[in-house]
């Protein structure tokens, strides 16, 4: 309890990370329960009401309506679930894969396996991520699953680099040396000794990365390679509205603000977590 309180004090030392926490919590709540809270739940799917098409923001439609007459506010909230899903799935696959690659390479630093694994990682890191993701997503059928796959493929190397760095510095710690000397097996060393020490760095990076993965997903869907109509996605909402700028600005501006807020939220939260875990030793 005492420790929890101290962690909260460290976290909230920067008030701005509390804002991040609030934004992220709101996002998570809306992603899970948003469907039941929005004013026009039926507008999230394929719904057409040309009578109300292209209305400017008003008290009835907070963010206006799109060219099919659907409430933009409802569609933004409705897109959150897939947005969140994308972030979670991409990170839950790329983080463990990257961790194992990085730890094995870092533990065998200087040996052949280190060179092979890290050069492969470097090759992935050398290709501009968006180009790689666009290439993968366009070769495969454009849908949510494939865009997640594309992002995952270009995301794991970052985790490999991170765990490689942590592991190679832990390599000279006496407790790792002791474990080897006394005859411990590799799985014990990786999962019992190294993993707990990587955890805080990996968790911090995952929080920060949520925002970036969401941007990447929105970029793919902006290019038409993500979730397909009529399901709502922030990227495709922006891309379909952008040609009506600046006249019907609400088509574009509100989904864009939603993206900015979400990314900002995760970044601020990540900074707060890194403050909290980083000063743990003192």
């Amino acid at each position, binding site marked *: 309890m005492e420790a929890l309180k101290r962690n909260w004090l460290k976290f909230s030392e920067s008030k701005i990370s509390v804002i991040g926490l609030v934004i992220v919590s709101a996002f998570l709540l809306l992603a899970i329960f948003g469907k039941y809270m929005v004013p026009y739940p039926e507008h999230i799917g394929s719904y057409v009401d040309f009578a109300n098409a292209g209305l400017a923001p008003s008290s009835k439609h907070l963010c206006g309506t799109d060219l099919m007459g659907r409430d933009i506010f409802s569609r933004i909230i409705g897109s959150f679930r897939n947005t969140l899903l994308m972030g979670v799935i991409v990170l839950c696959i790329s983080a463990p894969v990257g961790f194992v690659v990085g730890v094995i390479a870092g533990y065998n630093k200087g040996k052949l396996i280190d060179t092979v694994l890290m050069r492969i990682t470097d090759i992935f890191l050398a290709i501009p991520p968006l180009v790689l993701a666009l290439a993968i997503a366009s070769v495969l059928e454009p849908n949510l699953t494939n865009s997640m796959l594309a992002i995952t493929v270009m995301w794991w190397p970052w985790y490999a680099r991170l765990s490689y760095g942590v592991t190679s510095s832990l390599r000279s710690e*006496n407790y790792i040396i*002791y474990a080897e*000397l*006394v005859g*411990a097996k590799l799985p014990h060393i990786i999962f*019992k000794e190294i993993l*707990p*020490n990587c955890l805080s760095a990996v968790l911090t990076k995952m929080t920060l990365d949520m925002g970036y993965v969401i941007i990447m997903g929105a970029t793919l869907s902006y290019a038409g390679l993500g979730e397909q109509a009529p399901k709502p996605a922030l990227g495709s909402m922006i891309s379909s509205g952008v040609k009506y700028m600046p006249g019907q600005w609400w088509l574009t501006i509100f989904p864009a603000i939603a993206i900015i807020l979400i990314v900002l939220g995760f970044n601020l939260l990540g900074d707060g977590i890194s403050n909290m875990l980083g000063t743990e030793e003192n």
Partner: protein
Amino acid sequence: MAEKILDIKNLKKYFPLKSGQVVKAVDGVDLELYEGETLGLVGESGSGKSTIAYVLVGMYEATDGDIIYKGDNLAKAGLNRTLKQRGEIQIVFQDPGSSLNSKRTVGKSLMVPLKIHTKMSKADMEKRSRDLLEEVGLPAEFADKYPRTLGGGERQLISVARALATNPSLVILDEPTSALDVSVQAKVISKLIDLQKELQLAYLFITHDLSLMRNVADRVAILYLGRLCEQAPAEDFFKKPLHPYTQMLLSSIPVVTAEEEKMKPSKVQSTGEIPSPVNVPPGCAFHLRCRYKKPICMKERPVMKELSPGHFVCCHLFNDDTYESDKTAAQTVAE
């Protein structure tokens, strides 16, 4: 007579550098260790004292020479030694901050050797790790604590407990107290002495602290740039230090009483610095800093000579052929 358990003969450990040069970290060292005794291995940085420890526990293979432990030669075994040999030679590291995993409880750290070296059930291991804590004088409840909540001395005692888990007969203590305050050091050292008596342990005590060795070691050996300078029973050693380097080392120790001050060789003052082990000077490695150096010291490496029972010196001043003519010099040194 206690049984000889370790016999190190002409041990060498070289590290090749990328530049083609070779670091001769340990260059021909002979040591013996008997059951239940403490051998103090004293040297400054670059003397190769830690390298000897790491070769003994198997982190490195020796470049040359023999390490006979209870009849088996471990020099080339590295980590390919048997589980029994791993358990019998244990080590306690210098840095209390890095010898325990800060993300695991003390109890879990203590169970690592038990898991590998015994067939105990989980409950038995938990009980044994608590017993080990009590054996080194710590409360059993420490098993549930994380290392960061404990002091440096407590962490070092936990490392000792971990080393004892495999019932070793030789424990290598690599500067176990040099990072601790003196009042804490005193606690750890007196516990180590008690444990040694109780369990008949042999200690290879590596340190740079000669005054500590005066109170702990049965025999003392001095290393300089990977070579032994002098080796003697502790009593004899401090009464009559012979090698010029030993004298410089003794004269440099800051002491707290006037009686101690009298024991320091007053004529010698510390000069110069330890050369890099990449460029060990030819002849006697110490000649650059030695105030008694003769022409031969720059050319020829001196050999170890037993001057009185158990008291060995490696210095040209005490050489057979020239001993007579140099008697005056040797005597000045001895005084």
